[in-house]
C-alpha cells in the first residue's frame, strides 16, 4: 500500500462569528458582514489547497471537551442542528457531515496501543460541537470530504500545560503514524484561537467592527510572537514556550490542539503561511497553513 501522508496542517479557528458573518444557507441568523480579515484568510487557505488532492480532514476541536481521555466520532454520518450555547444569537447551524470511521478507528487503535485513554463515540444522538462544525464549514464549505473528529482532553485543567503537552505530543505522533499506515492523503486542522480573553459584553450589532480589538496589548504581543515563530519555521519554540503562552495569553492552546498539530506535523522547521489574523470579541485568531506537500516535494 502507498504510504499515507499529511498534505497540510492548519490552524483553523472556530469562532461562530465567522460563519454568522458569511450568511451560509445552513445558518439561521443573518449578518451584515464583519470579521472580513479572517474570513478572507480562510478564502486564501482554501485557494492555497484547491489543487491539492486529499481524502480526509482530521480536526481536533476544543469544544468537544472530554475529561476522560480522547474520544473520536465513530459513526459514518451525523446531521442535525447545532446551537452554540454561548452565542445562540449567532450560530444555529444545520449540519450534515460524514466521518472517515476507518481512519478514526485507526488513530484510536494506534493511540490505545501507545497507552493513551481513548474511546469511540458511537451514540447516534450525539450532537457534534460547534467548534468542529465552524472549522469544518470555513475550511470546506462544500462538506465534500469525510472528517475525523477528535475531542479535546482537558488535561491542562487537570494537571498542567506540561502534562497536556506530553499527552498531545504523543497523540500527534500516533496520529501521524496512523495516517501514514492508512495510505490516505490527509489535512490536519487544529481548531483553536491564539490569545483567548473575551469581552464580556457584546455590541448591539454583533458585527460592529468599530468595537472589535484585541483585549489587551499583552495579548497582541503574545499572538505576534507565536505567529512570528510560525512564519519563520520555529515550531519547536512554540512548544517550548507553550506553558507561558497558554497561561499569560489565556490561550486556547490549553485545549491541546496546537501542540497536537505541531507534533502531528513532526514539529516543522519550515515556514508556515499566515493567511489571516484578526480579533473576535477580543480574542486573537490566525488562519495558518503549513504546506507539507510543498515541503516534501522540495525535499524529494
Amino acid at each position, binding site marked *: 500500500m502507498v504510504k499515507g501522508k499529511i498534505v497540510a496542517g492548519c490552524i483553523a479557528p472556530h469562532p461562530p462569528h465567522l460563519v454568522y458573518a458569511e450568511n451560509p444557507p445552513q445558518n439561521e441568523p443573518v449578518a451584515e458582514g464583519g470579521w472580513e480579515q479572517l474570513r478572507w484568510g480562510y478564502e486564501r487557505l482554501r485557494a492555497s489547497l484547491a489543487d491539492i488532492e486529499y481524502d480526509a480532514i482530521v480536526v481536533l476541536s476544543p469544544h468537544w471537551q472530554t*475529561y476522560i481521555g480522547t474520544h473520536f466520532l465513530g459513526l459514518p454520518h451525523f446531521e442535525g*442542528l447545532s*446551537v452554540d450555547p*454561548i452565542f*445562540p444569537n449567532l450560530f444555529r447551524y444545520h449540519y450534515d457531515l460524514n466521518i472517515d470511521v476507518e481512519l478514526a478507528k485507526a488513530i484510536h487503535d494506534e493511540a490505545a496501543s501507545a497507552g493513551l485513554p481513548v474511546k469511540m*463515540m458511537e451514540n447516534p444522538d450525539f450532537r457534534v460541537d460547534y467548534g468542529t462544525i465552524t472549522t469544518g464549514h470555513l475550511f470546506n464549505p462544500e462538506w465534500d470530504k469525510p472528517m475525523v473528529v477528535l475531542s479535546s482532553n482537558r488535561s491542562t*485543567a*487537570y494537571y498542567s500545560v506540561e502534562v497536556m503537552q506530553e499527552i498531545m505530543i504523543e497523540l500527534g505522533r500516533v496520529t501521524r503514524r496512523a495516517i501514514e499506515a492508512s495510505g490516505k492523503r490527509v489535512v490536519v486542522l487544529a481548531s483553536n484561537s491564539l490569545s483567548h480573553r473575551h469581552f464580556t459584553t457584546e*455590541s448591539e450589532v454583533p458585527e460592529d467592527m468599530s468595537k472589535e480589538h484585541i483585549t489587551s496589548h499583552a495579548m497582541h504581543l503574545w499572538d505576534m510572537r507565536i505567529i512570528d515563530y510560525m512564519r519563520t519555521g520555529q515550531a519547536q519554540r512554540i512548544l517550548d514556550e507553550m506553558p507561558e503562552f497558554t497561561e499569560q495569553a489565556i490561550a486556547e492552546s490549553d485545549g491541546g490542539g496546537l501542540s497536537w498539530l505541531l507534533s502531528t506535523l513532526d514539529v516543522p522547521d519550515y515556514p508556515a503561511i499566515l493567511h489571516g489574523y484578526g480579533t473576535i470579541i477580543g480574542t486573537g485568531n490566525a488562519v495558518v497553513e503549513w504546506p507539507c506537500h510543498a515541503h516534501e516535494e522540495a525535499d524529494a
Partner: protein
Amino acid sequence: MTEGSVVGSFVVPVHPHTVLAPDQNEGWQRLRDAFDTAAQTIKELDADLLVIYSTTWPSIIGHQIQSDPNPEWVMVDHDFHDLGSIEYSFNIDQDFAHAWDDANRKRGLQSRCVNYKGFPIDVGSVVALTLLNPDNAIPAVIVSSNMYANRSETTVLAKSCLDVIKAQGRRAVAITAMSLSNRMFTDFIKPEEDKIHSLKDDEWNLKILEFLKQGRLEDVGQLSRTIQRQIRVQKVVAFKPMWWLSAMNGNRNDLTGQVLAYEPIHGAGGAVVSIDPTPSGAGDKEYDEDDIEYFHGERGVLDTVDEIDEGGEEAPAVEQASSGPGLWEPTEAEGSVNTDAAPKPVGAYPHARKVGNMLFLSGVGPRQPGTNAIPGGPIHDENGEPLDYDIEAQTHAVVNNVKRIVEEAGASMDQVVDVTTFLVDMKRDFKGYNDVWAQTLGKIGPTRTTLAIDALPTPIAVEMKVIVHLGE
C-alpha cells in the same frame, strides 16, 4: 399578594449516571434515591418555581437565562455518551425568565434571555429537572454560569432573582447543579471501581458537607476560593455556585441543612443536599466579605477609552470611582471632622467642620463608605439611561451617613437642628423620602427645607445639608 421567598434549596450532582445508570453502582443508586427524596420534598413545599444555577452551562457575555417555554431535544453527555441518551421536554417559566433578565440589568448586570429551538440544555440542568421535576408540574428557570463572573457579580445575580421572586409572590426552590470536588478519573473505570478521586478531595467534601449540615451556607460561600484551589479543576473560576446559593438564602449561616447522599461519580464528589430556610441557630458568620447590591464591574471595554490627565505633582490624590466623578480624601483644616465611616467626598472639602459650638456638614448622600455602592440603586446607568431605584433605601442610607459623621464629631443625632434636603425628582420621591424622614429625623424635630434640583454629582436621588448644635 404575599411577598415571595425561597422556600427550599438543593445542591445536586451534574453527571448523567443518576438518570441513565443508577443500577450499575450502589452509590449512584443512593444518589438517585436522594434525588427522589428531594423531588418529594419539593412537592411537599408546595413550590411554584424551580430556579437552577448550572455549572455545566458556561457563558461569556454576562449571564444567560433560558426562556424557551418548552425546550425539547435529546441530550448526550460529551464524556459519558456510552451510557445513553436523555430525551427532555421541560416547562420553563418564560415570564419569570424575562423579569429576571430585566432585574439583572437594573442591578448593573449584563444579561440576556435565550429562546432558540434546539438550544442544547446542559447536562446538569437536564439531570436536575429530569429527576426533581419528573412530571414537569413546576415551572422552572435556568441560568448560566458566567466563566468570568466574580463573587460580586454572582451575588447580585441572586439578588436580582430574589427581587422577582418577592415581587411575583413566588414560592421558589433554588438549585445548584454542581459537583463538590470535580476531579474525575482521567482513565476509564468499571462502575464498581468508582470512588472519590483522592483522600484529600474526600476530606474537603466532608468538610463542606459538615458546614452545609449545620446550615452554614455563607461560610461555604466565603470559603469558595479556598475550596476551588484545593479540590477543583478549573472548569469554572471559583466555587461560584455557593456564592449564588448563599445569596439566594440571604447570606445566612443559620439555615437547616440535611445531606441526603454523598457518593463518587467517576471520582468526582456528588452530593444531594437539602437546605431549609428555617433558622437553626447554628451560628454567625466566621468571615465577613462585603455585601453588594449592585454590580459596578468593568463593562466599558467596547468603548473608546479617553486619555486621563494624570495631573502635576501638586494635584490632590483622586481615586477613580467605578462610575461618576473621582473620589477625594477629605480636606483637613482647622475644625474639620472626617471619618472613614462616611463616603469619600467628590471634591476638596471635609465631611464636616466645627465653628464654635456649631457643626456644619457638607452635603451627605447615600453612597456607602468603601464600596461607593448606592443602596436602593443608582438613578441612571453609565450611559445616562434612567434606572429604577428605591428612594426609601437611599434616604435611610443618607440618614445613616449623617449619623456617622455627627457621632465622629462627638455629638448625637438629637443635636441636629436644621436640615436642607435636595431631591432630583420631587414628584416621584417626596413621599418615600418623607416617610423615612418621619421614622428618623422627624422624631428628633430639626427644621427642614426640601428643594427640587436638576442633578447631583453622583447618580443619587437625595442629599442632605445638616447643621448640628453641639451644646454650650
